[in-house]
């Protein structure tokens, strides 16, 4: 058995006798006997470190993870991008990894300043001046955006495009049950565009994805006009990597912009820990969920950082708080700041262009080869749906055997209107021409 208790038996005995006790169980006299377990836990006996790692590796090896043997064309909110050594080494430093929430700013300047830098980068990505220190993931960021809009407008009708990530829509519906928001889904038509309801009565916010789940760049400006007319907020769920090429949500009039930050240097990780990006306008700062780092000075007049506008937060406002967020995803926010700094101005622009070029190459190749019907081929940055002659989930299953995670099947809970049964294919800068050529060959075989 491994133990991280440093005490020797003698130390335990002497500490007990210092307290006037005989055994460790004497510490628990406050627990009524009937409520004590009275037996050891029915868990296996403890293992040495090497045995633990071997056992975990055995379990992990039953996953078919992204690798040379399992080339990943799946996206849908989680992307197989290249990761780099310096950001990984820095992000793995134990001062970042094993710190607690920066309650004592005098000894937490490292995390606080990294978050300040992160907030700056997220504000540039989103084009909005206020960005928080992160939320759990894209879905939770959207939930908080919807709550903010409801609190701001004192209305409860929330209109989401069907082409917002279906998992995020489901999450919004789950948490809407508490306060009782009315969540309405505006369907997408065969062109992949959202058809917004004519009736704007009582709308708190419109939520549009940019680019949307199908990869299409929707007419965000038109949604903005609709929101302004209705006195509603515009919430934009954006793809941060696409911001390398596209105008920011802020430029298009977003009141709140949210995103999944996994693409910014976080491994696929079976879906978590990821990173929820959240930005808004100065006007809405008092309703901002989560933590916010601000610049200040210390008693010597040196620049210092601290969590600020704390009066918004749950530990102070308690039942009057508009969000219950406490722990967030600070470490992933630090990773994203380091990753974006490594890419830099030129590298980030190049990253977007390479994704787009790869996407264009693959969708063109599939069109040339007559692989299914490529939908929305033009316009998208790194993802597109293709209708196949067979159900996408069957194709995905067969492609696994050929060493490819072929994409995301838009079926079941992930089906989107006219695109039900399509395969959503993602191309990052990591996918080489040779991989794409082979992917198309294998896909042709499977579809034969």
């Amino acid at each position, binding site marked *: 058995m491994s133990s991280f208790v440093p005490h020797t038996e003698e130390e335990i005995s002497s500490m007990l006798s210092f307290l006037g006790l005989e055994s460790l169980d004497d510490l628990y006299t406050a627990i009524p006997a009937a409520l004590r377990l009275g037996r050891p836990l029915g868990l296996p006996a403890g293992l040495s470190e090497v045995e633990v790692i071997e056992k975990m590796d055995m379990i992990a090896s039953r996953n078919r993870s992204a690798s040379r043997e399992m080339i990943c064309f799946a996206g849908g909110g989680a992307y197989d991008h290249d990761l780099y050594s310096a950001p990984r080494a820095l992000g793995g430093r134990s001062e970042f990894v094993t710190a607690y929430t920066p309650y004592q700013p005098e000894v*937490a300047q490292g995390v606080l300043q990294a978050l300040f830098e992160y907030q700056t980068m997220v504000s540039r990505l989103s084009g909005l001046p206020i960005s928080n220190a992160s939320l759990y993931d894209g879905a939770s960021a959207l939930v908080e955006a919807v709550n903010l809009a409801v609190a701001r407008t004192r209305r409860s009708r929330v209109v989401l495009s069907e082409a917002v990530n279906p998992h995020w829509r489901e999450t919004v519906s789950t948490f809407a049950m*508490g306060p009782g928001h009315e969540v309405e889904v505006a369907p997408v038509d065969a062109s992949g565009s959202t058809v917004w309801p004519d009736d704007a009565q009582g709308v708190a916010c419109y939520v549009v994805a940019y680019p949307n789940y199908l990869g299409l760049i929707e007419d965000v400006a038109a949604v903005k006009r609709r929101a302004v007319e209705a006195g509603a907020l515009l919430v934009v769920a954006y793809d941060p990597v696409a911001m390398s090429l596209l105008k920011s949500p802020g430029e298009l009039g977003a009141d709140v912009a949210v995103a999944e930050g996994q693409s910014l240097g976080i491994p696929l990780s079976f879906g978590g820990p990821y990173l929820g990006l959240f930005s808004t306008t100065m006007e809405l700062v008092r309703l901002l969920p989560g933590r916010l780092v601000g610049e200040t000075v210390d008693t010597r007049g040196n620049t210092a950082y601290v969590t600020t506008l704390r009066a918004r937060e749950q530990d102070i406002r308690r039942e009057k708080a508009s969000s219950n967020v406490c722990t967030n995803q600070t470490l992933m926010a630090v990773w994203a700041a380091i990753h974006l700094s490594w890419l830099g101005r030129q590298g980030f622009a190049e990253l977007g*262009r*390479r994704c787009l070029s790869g996407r264009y190459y693959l969708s063109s190749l599939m069109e040339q080869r007559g692989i299914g019907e490529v939908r929305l081929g033009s316009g998208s940055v790194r993802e597109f749906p293709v209708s196949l002659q067979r159900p996408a989930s069957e194709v995905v299953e067969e492609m696994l055997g050929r060493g490819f995670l072929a994409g995301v099947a838009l079926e079941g809970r992930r089906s989107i209107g006219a695109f039900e049964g399509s395969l959503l294919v993602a191309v990052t800068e990591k996918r080489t021409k040779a991989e794409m050529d082979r992917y198309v060959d294998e896909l042709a075989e499977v579809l034969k």
Partner: protein
Amino acid sequence: MTQTEIFAAGGKATSIPMMGGGPEPTIFELSVSGRRSGALRNNGVPLVDPASVIDTAYLRTEPLDLPEVSERDLVAHFTRLTHRQYSVDLGAYPLGSCTMKYNPKLADTVAGLPGIANTHPLAPVSAIQGWLELICTLEEYLLEITGMDAATFAPAAGAQGELTGLLIMKAYHRHRGNQKTKVLIPDSAHGTNPASVTLSGYHAVTVPSNARGLVDVGALRGLVDNEVAGIMLTNPNTVGLFEEEIAEIAEAIHEVDGLLYYDGANLNAIVGVARPGDMGFDIVHSNLHKTFATPHGGGGPGSGPVAVVERLARFLPGPYPVRGETGFDLIQPENSIGRVHSHFGNAVVFARALAFMLALGGDGLGLMSRVAVLNANYLKALIAEHYPPAYQATCMHEFVATASNLKRAAGVRALDVAKALLDRGFHAPTVYFPLIVDEALMIEPTETESRQTLDALAAALIEIASMAENGEGARSLHEAPQLTPASRVDEARAARHLVTTWDAKD
């Protein structure tokens, strides 16, 4: 300034920055136009002009303004920032209710295994059998530890677990046709409890504590009526005491078909000793980043699994991993409240927690909690003369002491004590919480700090108390910390003059 001259094994960090003690410029100030770190791969695909593919109305005209730094400058900058940051790896972190224990390194190796780090969350079930096995195994262990029947790991942190648990409570009452409007919460509760209750659509009703620091069961009975959906309790509670009358509380709540919610913030006290399920709790959240030693990352990622009794399993969020005859599968529980996370939760944190449980085993987990409680009582006794405990009873994993003596005698407050501890190489305890104790110092040493570290921490606290006895000493405590990367930070100014990005600077 006198430094406590006790250097404990594995205990006392130096708080003096090793080098570069001055403020570090931001990455934006280090930026030089045209500079960059590494190159991207050439993927062999002809480069496309974005304007030929994307509607120019949406195309950005200038590249996004990100820092332009060499990899060498990048590494220097963030390494210097780490020198301005305290962490568990550096020394003791006795924050009450935060359970900042040592995070074993073996979990880092596990987190980096390719089968853990590189799995796509939308891969078909046949490609994620390992992950589903991992989650099901972790669930079985957690259920044994908590005495519950089914658990979801989707909530990304304790607060999200609370809200998930409350939505399960709400779904249960709707299913039963119960008309419920309120949830009871003790006055010592964490702030997330009342905030989560509001977001669940219920009203939070405060239950007073009695003079012993426990729920006033008489007052509670007076508050219980048919509109009570349930109660949220932390047991041991936030003052570090076990709610001895939990069985009576459970009975009163269950009588009106209410549910008992267990906030697992303080689970570290009782693993292998007592189980929330046996106390009558119906919904239990745990914090994997506390009890099961996964690193907190400076404020996350956490992980807040929610375990429930059998009759509530049908309401759990989906998708829910299950162990089947021929393999593992994902199902949607019959009356599921729905999805609470983009994917499955903070999955890599599960892997770390399972590795921790496998390493310790049943016996090791039991010893873990017992020593956590031993350490808390030992430290409480060492400092009791100078910092009287708010409650006399044997504490569990943490205790609340008060600095009210120092405040009365010399105007030295809990905040000053906290800041002075930073100068002595220790992180401060939680201060001014719970709200029901004046000048509260809430101290949780955890089981991974040695006796020598506790002795050194007590000596530092006692030295601070004795400094408060004279005017000069008290003045220097008001000026602490002096040896830290920043001296006392002006929090009010940050809020008054809001600058939250480099671009917002004048």
